[in-house]
């Protein structure tokens, strides 16, 4: 349409893409890994590019999976670590860390709890003193707990404004029922009110043990320094807590026959979650499943995003995810579409789920995604902290030691048949749950034509 190129440029052929040079080898960075007699797993990911250090503590099993019926317990316990110790008040901890210009964050997910310190090298000693104190001497004071509970209750209430959050909650409940992954990790209004300081103390005693602990030292720090810090600063934790009873037995609730609407009056879009149970992180088919899912809906160039966004203009974006945890996971297609096209969008997604389980992907699709996943791998390792996250995951999810060294060859060795088999094995278009959070008054008539409606 508009041509700003001058005529003199004949020798340059712009009609074809340039040829790439020879690819460089990508190696997963070396790291130090040892387990001490008290059970602490020490990892050192040394990198002197910037004069900064992160110290990341991960307590395995101290995650929401072990909340029991006190939903939110793991999360509250982690958050309260930084809200007071035997020698420091919450405000003093905040003041000291902020003064270093660094950060100290604690939190949890399904599979563990985390406390991370990030400081410039010159502030490391002071930073580790605070980290060591909050991990080993938390007091879980009542005042601080009730202050934090009020904040959490308010956050839970505010979460009801968010369509995606509403869908997530309903979807997880429908897929997992009363199993741990079906409950909200942040807790419910009822469960939070009932959690006491004694509950936090118990959870802390049971799961914050040296045998559950992974410490990763990341950045401008040597192995000797890291080992000395571990010995000097983190030796007070008890070695053993509670016996683990982490069994997970899934039985499919037969509730996929309906469409679930979470009513959000006045909504101008419908938020969709379409899927079912997924896989655990250490499933041997994980890489095949990831490639299959990437083609289906895992990146911008995927089938689902192309159809819903680039072809029909129904959405700003649509993606599918296999969201893996330690024992299981979920699979879902997530998107937001305008009210008028809610039913059409759902039908298009269901068609794609059928197609991926019925037909081979094309050579072009497979090659593109293989290149994409191998190509972005070094991008995902740019910072020492990004490398550390992967090393920690090896440990947390019991992956083979050479997992990342073999990562690229695992990707390239997969065939179209492997991809089709993984789709057949892990996606079942006959047992797909559909959750829609949107304005029921506007969308429910049309949704009825897809399936019956579950009670609101």
């Amino acid at each position, binding site marked *: *349409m*508009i*041509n*700003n190129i*001058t005529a003199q440029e004949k020798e*340059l052929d*712009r009609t074809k893409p*340039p040829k*790439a*040079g*020879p*690819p*460089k080898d*990508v190696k997963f960075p070396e790291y130090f890994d040892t387990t001490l007699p008290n059970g602490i797993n020490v990892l050192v990911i040394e990198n002197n*590019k*910037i*004069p*900064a250090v992160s110290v990341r503590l991960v307590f395995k099993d101290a995650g929401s999976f072990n909340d029991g019926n006190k939903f939110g317990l793991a999360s509250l316990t982690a958050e309260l670590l930084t809200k007071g110790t035997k020698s420091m008040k919450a*405000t003093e901890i*905040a003041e000291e860390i*902020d*003064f*270093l*210009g660094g950060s100290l964050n604690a939190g949890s997910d399904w599979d563990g709890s985390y406390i991370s310190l*990030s400081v*410039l090298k010159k*502030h490391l000693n002071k930073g580790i003193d605070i980290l060591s104190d909050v991990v080993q001497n938390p007091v879980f004071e009542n005042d601080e707990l009730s*202050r934090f509970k*009020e*904040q959490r209750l308010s956050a839970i*209430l*505010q979460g009801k*404004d*968010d369509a995606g959050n509403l869908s997530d909650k309903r979807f997880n409940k429908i897929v997992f029922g009363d199993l741990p992954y079906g409950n909200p990790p942040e807790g419910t209004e009822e469960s939070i009110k009932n959690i006491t300081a004694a509950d936090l103390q118990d959870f802390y005693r049971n799961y914050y043990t040296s045998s559950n602990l992974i410490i990763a030292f990341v950045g401008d720090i040597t192995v000797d320094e890291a080992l000395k810090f571990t010995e000097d600063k983190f030796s007070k934790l008890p070695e053993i807590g509670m016996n683990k009873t982490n069994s997970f037995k899934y039985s499919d609730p037969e509730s996929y026959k309906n469409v679930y609407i979470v009513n959000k*009056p006045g909504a*101008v*879009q419908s938020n969709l979650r379409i899927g079912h149970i997924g896989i655990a992180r250490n499933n041997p088919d994980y890489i095949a499943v990831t490639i299959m899912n990437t083609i289906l809906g895992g*990146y911008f*160039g995927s089938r689902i995003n192309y159809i819903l*966004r*680039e*072809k*029909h*203009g*129904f*959405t*700003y974006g649509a993606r599918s995810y296999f969201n893996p945890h330690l024992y299981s996971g979920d699979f879902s297609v997530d998107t*937001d579409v*305008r009210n008028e096209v809610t039913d059409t969008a759902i039908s298009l997604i269901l068609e794609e789920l059928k197609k991926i389980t019925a037909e081979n992907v094309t050579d072009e699709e497979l*090659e*593109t995604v293989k*290149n*994409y996943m191998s*190509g972005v791998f070094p*991008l995902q*390792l*740019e*910072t*020492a*902290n990004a490398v550390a996250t992967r090393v920690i995951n090896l440990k947390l999810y019991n992956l083979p030691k050479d997992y990342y060294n073999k990562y690229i060859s695992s990707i390239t060795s997969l065939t179209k048949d492997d991809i089709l088999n993984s789709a057949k094995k892990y996606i079942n278009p006959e047992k797909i749950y559909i959750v829609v959070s949107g304005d029921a008054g506007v969308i429910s008539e049309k949704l009825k034509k897809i399936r019956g409606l579950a009670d609101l």
Partner: protein
Amino acid sequence: MSVLSYGQNNNFAQIDFKEYDLKNGLHVILYKDNTNPIVSVNIWYHVGAKDEDSGRTGFAHLFEHMMFQGSANIGKTEHFNYIQKAGGTLNGTTNQDRTNYFASVPSNQLELLLWLESDRMSTLQVTQENFDNQREVVKEEKRQRYDNAPYGSRWEEMMKRLFREQTYEWTPIGSMDDLNSADLDYAKNFYKKYYSPDNAVLVVSGDFEYETAEKLIKKYFDDLKPAGTVKNKYEEIIFNQGEINDTIYDNVQLPAVYIGYKIPGTTHNDIYAITLLTMVLGDGKSSRIYNDIVYNKKSARSAGSFLWDNEIGGMLIVTASAFKNTDPVNLLNDITANIQKISDEGITEKELEKAKNSIEHDYVNMMQSTLRIADELANYYTFFKNTGLINTALNEYMKITAEDVRNAAKKYLVNENRVVLTYLPKPGNNK
């Protein structure tokens, strides 16, 4: 061409970069770091929402979408395909002042990115079909991120009051009406006017050799024609226009308060002090507002402040997310009292040092990512025409005194220079 170095108060590694202009005005910045086998290309066009004509709001951003829809030698969806197939990632963003496009690929694929970028800088193909498709996509983006999101209208409501009849009166997403009436001819003219080498900065960062990169850039960009566009005149920012205090009813459960104070443009000397002031006020759990409002008075679940700076003028924003039973009027009065106290009594040396330590920490962390460095380089060139600030800005912060911070509060954080928005649940929305 310059290779800068400094090393006054800190012994941090310097960002060594090269910069030069092509004869068509394209400004090139090269930052070489061979640590990882990846390379990024980041192009900033000096055009954003503030360049939109009235009745055309949202256009700069809609146009950003069009830049991924194909050019003379690249078909629809191919721009993404080429890069993803090369093992790369890409995106673009539009703000008030600039539109940027960035991609990272394995370093053997640098030439591909330069080919793609030069093609769409010179021969974009805007078809009616693709334009209509992306218009719908952007309308869905607006619904998802603003219209259907709790408190989603806050910045639109803030800016239309704070910058009434001035530059920055609207946000980059624009209005539904203007998106609906956007047309192809305007797109073609917009492209001609703003998408040219003399309105762009090209940053290549990461794993490459200078000689190769310079040769490739010459190969793909040297013959593109400049546009020689004279930009629109921007309305000046007017301070102290009188306080506006409005209530907005939204689909939300809880009240929230948003306060915006008008501040000068990015390059103004006061920005260093204003940045530190923002941090003392509301950055982190030991900041004044958090400590008083959230921790002691327990009248908000969260509260904080941040700086939203733009080329011509910006905002210092204070936000507080209230509890159900909080009286928003009391909340506002308490926040105002905290601000007044800084104007009256100043800040402590310790608070100043804390804020400076945090700036230093952020600066060091920025140096981990070649793409973030590229963004900073482009930023300092585009707005300051002084790329070397990437190495010297930290020292400018270190020079600021507690008195400078107090003066910034006295000058800008006054009621007649602010807009207050209180968001309340729509009646009948309390489920």
